[in-house]
């Protein structure tokens, strides 16, 4: 799954709204894991700077688009499916069925089940009236998750405004930065991006995209946890 980078993106970077990558702004081409590696502890102000990624139209493409484009190519051999593309909603098994099976005790293939199955978690966003469930296992890292979440919730932050006009966006969102947080297995609320992606998928119980002001209280606790872990 290629990451779309480019000059345009870098210029917009300063004003860009981004989700969940701490420890400095990763360019679109880097994976989240590389970024996370540079120390688990973040400065407080950096933490609050995390913002919702909505800007370029390329990053707004969700996984479905990528699969669709592959299928739409006229010359493709219909026999071969798009390599490694993750497809939403396939096989057609309802999410609660997938999730429940992921926690079943398996006498024969326990290790396989741990890596297989699904990891559906609820995602809520402050101000948005609805929840959504996402399967964390279909994303390869924080960047993909960020793109998907941005796509999912974009209409709440921009309403009718053309979301491609970044300047207008900044006015609208003046002072209302959003911060992605998650509840882990211990019931603590953590900032997304704290831990390596695989660990995050295992421990994340639910996601909440909080208004920045509310997340301020989280930072000290999150840093505490980082200390204990390392």
């Amino acid at each position: 799954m290629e990451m779309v980078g480019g000059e345009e993106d870098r210029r917009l970077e300063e004003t860009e709204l981004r989700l969940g990558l701490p420890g400095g702004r990763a360019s679109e081409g880097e994976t989240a894991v590389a970024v996370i590696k540079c120390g688990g502890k973040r400065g407080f102000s950096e933490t609050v700077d995390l913002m919702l990624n909505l800007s370029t139209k390329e990053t707004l493409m969700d996984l479905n688009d990528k699969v669709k484009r592959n299928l739409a190519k006229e010359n493709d051999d219909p026999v071969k499916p798009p390599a490694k593309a993750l497809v939403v909603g396939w096989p057609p098994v309802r999410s609660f069925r997938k999730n429940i099976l992921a926690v079943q005790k398996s006498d024969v293939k326990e290790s396989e089940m741990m890596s297989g199955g699904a990891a559906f978690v609820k995602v809520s966003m402050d101000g948005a009236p609805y929840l959504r469930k996402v399967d964390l296992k279909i994303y390869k890292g924080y960047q993909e998750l960020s793109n998907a979440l941005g796509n999912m919730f974009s209409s709440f932050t921009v309403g009718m405004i053309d979301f491609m006009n970044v300047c207008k966006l900044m006015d609208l969102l003046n002072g209302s930065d959003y911060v992605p947080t998650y509840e882990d297995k211990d019931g603590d609320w953590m900032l997304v991006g704290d831990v390596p992606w695989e660990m995050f998928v295992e421990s994340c119980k639910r996601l909440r995209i909080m208004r920045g002001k509310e997340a301020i209280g989280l930072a000290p606790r999150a840093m505490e946890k980082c200390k204990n872990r390392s």
Partner: protein
Amino acid sequence: MGENRAEVPGCGGDSQPPCPDQVLENVLENVLRFLTSRRDRNAVSLVCKSWYLAEALTRSELFIGNCYAVSARRATERFRRVNSVVLKGKPRFADFSLMPLIWGAHFTPWLTAFAAAYPWLEKIHLKRMSITDDDLAQISHSFPHFKELTLVCCDGFGTSGLAILASKCRQLRVLDLIEDEVEDDDVVDWLSCFPDNGTCLESLSFDCVELPINFDALERLVARSPNLKQLRLNQFVSIGQLYRLIVRAPQLTHLGTGSFSPPESWVPGEQEPDYRAAFAACSSLVYLSGFREIVPDYLPAIYPVCGNLTSLNFSYANLNAEELKAVVCHCYKLQTLWVLDTVRDEGLEAVATTCKDLTELRVFPIDAREDSEGFVSEVGLIAIAEGCRKLQSILYFCQRMTNAAVIAMSEKCHDLVVFRLCIMGRHRPDHLTNEPMDEGFGAIVMNCKKLTRLAVSGLLTDRAFGYIGKYGNSVRTLSIAFAGDSDMALKYVLEGCSNLQKLEIRDSPFGDSALRAGLHHYYNMRFLWMSSCKITLEGSREISKALPQLVVEVFRSGLAAVRDEDEFVDTLYMYRSLEGPRNDAPTHVRIL
């Protein structure tokens, strides 16, 4: 019988003779009362005006297959004496995350209309609709005779709404929550809210409520519900707690067993109750489900009831072939069986040996990923085909299949009404011959004359759809994914399947030209869904212009708006409607 004395119409007499129409109407109404099938009623209403009126007055169950096909106002104006409503909202692909988070299908406007028009309303059955806690409260206030609420695949409500319903609807007999998404932000002890002095409850299902419950309250509730026949528990009920419930309610006919495992706090070696005896006392039990966190050691407890079971749902139970065999060998009356593919072909062979009356089989994958191993194959399918000749409905998830097996099923199971085969790996051919699965599905439509629902998968060329178009005259619901080579495939279907009502297609190379091929038929359909195909915005607009009473929606799966410059439309969802474009569509859903 009629109010007037029977008098020969047209004869003069001392008293005012009833006019012929009046007598006819009375007779008609009394006869029509017995007509329950809605298809029959629809036919009756077309005979003439007076029959239309009589039918409208005597229809007591209102069925709306698409909540946007007709407005609440129109429905309540025509049908004045309804006491039971069935309402369906979102299309089925919403279950697979293919719809935007916010789309519609809100119950509130319907509820408002019903509250005004049908204060005597007794039953509400919703499928894929959004119903809020406020709606549940409104139901409690508006309908003093309310008796049955069934919610299937719904969302938008939580335990606070359930609490209000439980406490205010004193005549509640049925509360069935089936595969709903229940909000868990606010956990209210709703089971404590039922009336203290006893309830009329006959059926209580809450297996989809993924929240802990107050077990003592549940136990007391069961104790004061003498009419309770159906009880489906969630996974927060341990087997020890289950025991306490069934000893109080041996009259149960339907039981969802909850976790079917001991609580986490339990210590092995601790004295355990006689589960087997408790089940043995439930001599009326015909349906078992649940087994959400099953510890197979406890399975022998259900052996005493197996001989009576007509329906067994093991679709959450990770059982191997041996464990299933040990149960199923007693289940000679079984008609419906849902299992996981962990039972393997061998488990299915055991089913085929014993369950000669089987009419419905569903085999779900424990690992629902495209590249998972898959534990059942054509071997299991053939066994079932040979052993279960009365089979009517099958849903089968697998990774390996052959045309020969599907053909065998088409030849042996003449009563097949529903055939849904899901080969999970996309575009997979017959794994022995490497050919497309065309011949297998072709045989199904050719040989199964009663077939009304078909879901196809695997590697399929246009040829398969040629068969479906030619022979699939009785098919009403068709599901297509990752199949076909060209527009011809869809054209065959749209031109051939004259009874087609619901067509859902994803990720298949069908474009505008194919779409046009269905213009003659779309008014006869409930809906058409096409996602990730090759439909353009222009093509969709064309359809919308050609068929003014079709609502044509285009949207993407996220909340981003449809872009004019996109080559293809993400999702096209269109349906006939008497009302024109709906006024509650969110901004990211474009109605053409």
